[in-house]
């Protein structure tokens, strides 16, 4: 990996595109969807605070998927993201992860980031096994998700290929998501959707305790590879 990318600071001139792929399948209905919604709101607020309300540090895309994937927000300046009306409700069907990953690649390709930009980060969370378009959780669907993830991770963007961070809970398949993530360490298993509420803003925001001005790509990469420090 190029060291200069890791040292790149997230600034107005070097913004970062963050894509969130949110599972809205039926298994998320109820409390998991509420918790995930809360987590997304909190995360967006964290990212917004990092900009001090003034700086275009982050572009934010939000993709929701069930049987099919859709774009809820695409490459918006984080300061323009209005989350109040957004809520997951677990009514989107099954878990077509492959389609969601393909859509993420399309969104990033459309973004037109230049070499000045920081490489994008794609975060995804899911509680289910990947399904195909027919809603079946088959091995083919799992393999398709891994293949689409590979395509996404190898995207030849001017700003550098994206990093993929996967978060699983419930019936999510660890073996699949470890391969979907850029590295196995960038996959995180949570006990429940409720854990997302603190985990997502913490892991997804390039802040470092004790060194709050250290907002480099490398720091974020380090963070998503180790997870937040837990209190004993």
């Amino acid at each position, binding site marked *: 990996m190029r*060291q*200069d*990318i*890791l*040292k*790149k*600071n997230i*600034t*107005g*001139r*070097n913004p970062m595109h963050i894509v969130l792929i949110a599972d809205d399948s039926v298994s998320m209905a109820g409390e998991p969807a509420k918790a995930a919604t809360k987590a997304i709101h909190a995360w967006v607020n964290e990212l*917004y*605070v*990092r*900009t*001090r*309300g*003034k*700086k275009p540090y982050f572009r934010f895309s939000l993709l929701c998927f069930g049987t099919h994937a859709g774009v809820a927000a695409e490459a918006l300046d984080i300061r323009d993201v209005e989350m109040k009306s957004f809520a997951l409700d677990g009514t989107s069907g099954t878990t077509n992860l492959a389609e969601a990953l393909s859509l993420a690649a399309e969104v990033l390709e459309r973004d037109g980031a230049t070499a000045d930009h920081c490489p994008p980060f794609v975060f995804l969370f899911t509680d289910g096994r990947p399904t195909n378009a027919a809603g079946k959780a088959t091995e083919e669907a799992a393999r398709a998700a891994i293949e689409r993830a590979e395509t996404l991770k190898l995207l030849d963007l001017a700003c550098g290929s994206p990093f993929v961070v996967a978060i699983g809970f419930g019936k999510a398949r660890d073996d699949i998501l470890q391969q979907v993530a850029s590295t196995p360490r960038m996959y995180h298993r949570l006990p429940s959707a409720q854990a997302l509420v603190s985990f997502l803003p913490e892991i997804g925001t390039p*802040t470092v305790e004790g*060194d*709050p*001005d250290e907002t480099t790509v490398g720091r974020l990469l380090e963070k998503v590879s180790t997870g937040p420090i837990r209190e004993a």
Partner: protein
Amino acid sequence: MMRRDASRIDVQPCAPTVAIASSPNVQVFLPASSEVMGEAGPALPPAAWQLVSAAPECLVLVRDSDDADPVRAYLIPQAPPEAGPSESFPDDARNYPDYFAESEALGVATTAEIEPYAVRATDTSTASAPDDPRSPEAPFDEPTAPDDSENQLLARQAQSAPLATLGAGIAVSSITDAGAVQADVAGITEVPDSAASPVLLVTSKVTAGAVRDTAVSIVVPPAPPMSTILPTVEIQPSDDVVYVMRGQGDALRPELPVFPSPSLEAPQTVSEPHPVSSPEASARTSMAPSEVASPLGQWTTPVRVPLERRFGSFSSAGPKAAEEDKGNQDFAFHLEVPDGAGRPWVLVGVADGVSQSTWSARGARHASAAFIEAATELLQSSAASGTECALQGDAWPVRFAACFHDAVMKRTIEDREYLLAGRYTDPTWTPEAFESEFITGPRAKENVSKWFQSTLLAVAMGRTGGFGLFLGDGFARVDRIYQDHRRETASVLQPTRPVSAWLTQQEVHVGIVRFAPKGARRLGVVVTTDGVSKSSTEALIKAASPALLQAPRNAQHPLERIDFRSSQDCQAYLQRLAMMSAPEVEVDNMSIAFVLCGQTPDSQP
């Protein structure tokens, strides 16, 4: 004069009873029935009290623990009211002996400055009914027309459609809900659903709440007051500076790959005795022509004896991206002060305001000023303090830590109150984000620690030794040059906590470092902010002119190879560094300060 709109609240007279705290402009009272009577001292948390006391006018809400309704409110204007519902309650504080006695004890003003009301939060659906006696057509208060500024405030409030409006600039969104929700919560929390009209609610364990006007101006406040550099010696267009300007300073920048020998540092033109000191002169007001002013302040004094003391500093916004993002939140200083025996000491330092905090550029200045104040006090407190011998004891670091801690806390608390009172918004934040993070939002209380956050790497150096205070990150190295021209250089910075509102005296103590000569003839220190030290090795070396660059030796950090001889050197170096592109260079503000003191060949040991 304020105008009160009672359109949506039920107002009843209520007598003030007990003053719980005071400030020059505001007094906060709680009723006698409140359980706060049993408390020792102010019931509000300190952070909350700072906010309340800083408001030119504020509303204090009180709800007794065993009395859920109504919420009582006291609206406290800055100036005495011209008129008011004085007929509804006695205007003589002496009718309330408890209050009067208490207020005397606390040294607060009389009730002439207080307008108490009992406020019953009401249902919004009925508040504006045409026949409602509380409608705008039935004003309960003085009919005084508001002035233009109040009209603007009232117009703003009308736009935000609060549940209730109390006086100029005070809007209450949901007292009842807030009271119910916050009843047993300690701390500062935002009233739910009050985004359109943010209201600060402070609750203590006796459920006292305070609401303040949250209209925040975006006026940039003046820079915080800085230390007055004490009179030292007469500052004239001194030879040492002039000769640098005339190009004779080349002698100070020999084209040698090693540190210049003492003989090269001593051109004859400046080896003559220096002018006699004049205690009346102030270094602050006189700048030698060749001195490079810090972009953040004229806080430098010229080098008067470059042979024995060489020092300088410069602060740069850094690469363009950093400048565009946050301007310059660093600060650098260099100056001379005399110790108790009149011996000159050099104080230099750099401070790096933390971008994600607020008012960090002011924090950097406060940290620097506090160091100068504390170091000056320490050095001038004893004639012996200027000697290295005096620095070998254990007592002075404790004293210095206490002195610095007091100074920096006093400065930041006062400045915070000043900024809150003036409704200033940190220009590096949008007003909305600033308000949410630091004034009214749910994290405002914990974010008190983020006010004025800054690193500080500062050094006080005498002729035979000195000390430093290193709080936070960056780079620091110590140079020792021996009689035989042998030179030792070592990086010395250990991780420590930066300056913040939560910095403790013990943490300050941990950051103190003593510099002993250890037999060296000359002793020097270079400090930089992390914007410099985190740049790549290639960039740090490339930015140095050949005259500044020393041989590699066993340097652990590229900055160990670079010698700065003047503020101009620092400036030129940082300018070259800032012109390089990221990620070769760190996208951050950059500051350097250095000092080199010791004996020249001609000087007496």
